[in-house]
């Protein structure tokens, strides 16, 4: 603290008594409202599960695709297919390389996702569907390794771990555009055509003809 002048001292005492008046509990340091509790290291560790692209937050553990085949078949394959091809409307996990610029892009974790860390983070926090956070760290590394292997990104015996998950090079790593270029349509600057505008009013499609709208029973 800097040296107190006389008026500074008065202010200090005033604010000190104000804090006591309003908070009426412990003396706050520089907390404005004196609400809430300090979190313990254990409390934070239990909830802080995110893993960042550079590997920050990756829990200690490892696994290979070879060892992951079994757990994948057990907890993933029912929805995502034996080869990550998906089932019914459940999403495919691998494949689709080279399709992103096509009319029917297949955005899978290996064709589209830019970071391997995201696959780990998502599987650990949300999968298996309906049994979130039930996998061990090693099991999660194994499953991620198996998915990356199905997408031809790593070899079957590659040991994926907290040490290297931030360095896996994903095929679509540079497939994203930043920052957001919108508003990308400012043709009229608030003063659009009001009358006799040249537009086509020919009907080229009707939702009724597609006939996929749910109907009330």
């Amino acid at each position, binding site marked *: 603290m800097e040296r107190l002048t006389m008026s500074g001292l008065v202010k200090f005492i005033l604010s000190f008594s104000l804090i006591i008046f309003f908070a009426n509990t412990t003396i706050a340091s520089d907390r404005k409202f004196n609400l809430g509790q300090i979190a313990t290291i254990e409390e934070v560790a239990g909830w802080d599960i995110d893993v960042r692209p550079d590997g920050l937050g990756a829990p200690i553990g490892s696994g290979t695709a070879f060892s992951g085949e079994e757990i994948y078949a057990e907890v993933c394959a029912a929805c995502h297919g034996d080869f990550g091809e998906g089932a019914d409307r459940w999403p495919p996990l691998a494949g689709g390389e080279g399709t992103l*610029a096509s009319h029917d892009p297949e955005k899978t974790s290996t064709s589209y996702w830019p970071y391997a860390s*995201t696959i780990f983070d998502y599987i650990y926090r949300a999968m298996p569907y309906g049994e979130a956070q039930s996998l061990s760290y090693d099991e999660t590394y194994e499953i991620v390794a198996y998915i990356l292997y199905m997408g031809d990104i790593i070899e079957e015996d590659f040991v994926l771990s907290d040490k290297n998950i931030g360095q896996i090079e994903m095929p679509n790593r540079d497939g994203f555009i*930043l920052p957001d270029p919108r508003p*990308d*349509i400012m043709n009229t600057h608030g003063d*659009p055509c009001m009358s006799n505008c040249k537009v*086509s009013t020919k009907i080229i499609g009707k939702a009724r003809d597609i006939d996929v709208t749910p109907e009330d029973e």
Partner: protein
Amino acid sequence: MKKNKKNEVAKSKKFNRRDLIIGASSIGAISLASKNVLSEEANPENLPPNLPEWTQYLGDGVDINPYGMPSEFEGHVIRRNVEWLTASAESSVNFTPLQDLEGIVTPNGLCFERHHGGVAVINPQDFRLMINGLVDREMIFTLDDLKRFPQTNKFYFLECAANGGMEWRGSQLNGCQYTFGMVHNVQYTGVKLSDLILETGLKEKAKWVLAEGSDSSGMTRSIPIEKILDDCIIAWAMNGEALRPEQGYPARLVVPGWEGNMWVKWIRRLEFGDKPYLTREETSKYTDLLTNGKARMFTWVMDAKSVITSPSPEKPILSKGLHQLRGLAWSGRGKIKRVDVSIDGGKNWKTAQLHSPVLSKSLTRFTLPFEWNGEELLLQSRAIDETNYVQPTIDELQKIRGVNSIYHNNSIATWLVSKNGKVDNVRLG
């Protein structure tokens, strides 16, 4: 138990009015699919000069509906989903019935739902909000703690970035509800994050916040610190009552004007960091794929948009003469400045009346009276916001973004009114 009874009543197709009343009041809740009731002709016995039964006999007492429900005749005003859209109802979406709503407030029970792991059920005593990472003090707040902070009360729209996402390649769903209904507008009560941060302190390196939900999807999104400090809220109430479970009870994040996915429900944690976290929801999802195979990332703002809610596919024109065209407009960049309406597919436009309040990042109501004499109409509306951004046509969007973006389709829709008064979602070109 109650639910089953209700279904039984709803299933029995032929019921007279008295059965309906008895059945409904005996279960203490009346919300029946009353489409049949609505479409019936008026009962002459209830019309002048006759005396209707409700004028003569006692109705329900104050002990029947401790928590009130809409009239039984409004049973068709419900959220609806499109079953084929998703693999499971727990990771899916339903739609707000905009065509049946007035003003700008969405009733809590009609706010569309989007979950990724079903609705979390949380006893408020067990709620904790953790703030960790690049702060001076890592802290935990109870719900009661949050309610002791200075309070803010604000109306904001929440729109899913995928609203209208099925319409990129052409008109697909024939309804105002299904094409525009992933939006709602309520008044939030909560604490500003800028106030919460006064309590934890902030390290200079903190540039991003990871917001994390406590549901079984562990929903996570990265939000830049500027937005957090500008107008983000941790809300515990909507439209004057506690958040509905499906809207994040007991507390959710409010990110005004930005895509709904970022408004993390059942919030449990805010982590401050120096870089974005690039979670599944901001890489695999909520990125906008262009024709060259590259995708835009971090497209957060919801651009200006409007919709004619009536007439619409669900609201045909039933008679000739005067009608009030009704609609909603909104912009994630501020207030709606103007809404124009065309009845000839965009050749000629007329400016609609905006109804107060016109609030920033909130739904805004517009109306326009019109005479219908049985002719074919091509109805369109276009919103202009206070930044002078004009809602684009689908052609304008497609030229820049192609048809695979999924997200951020804010284009002008066209409703075809046929000579019989029926209304269809159509694409012009």
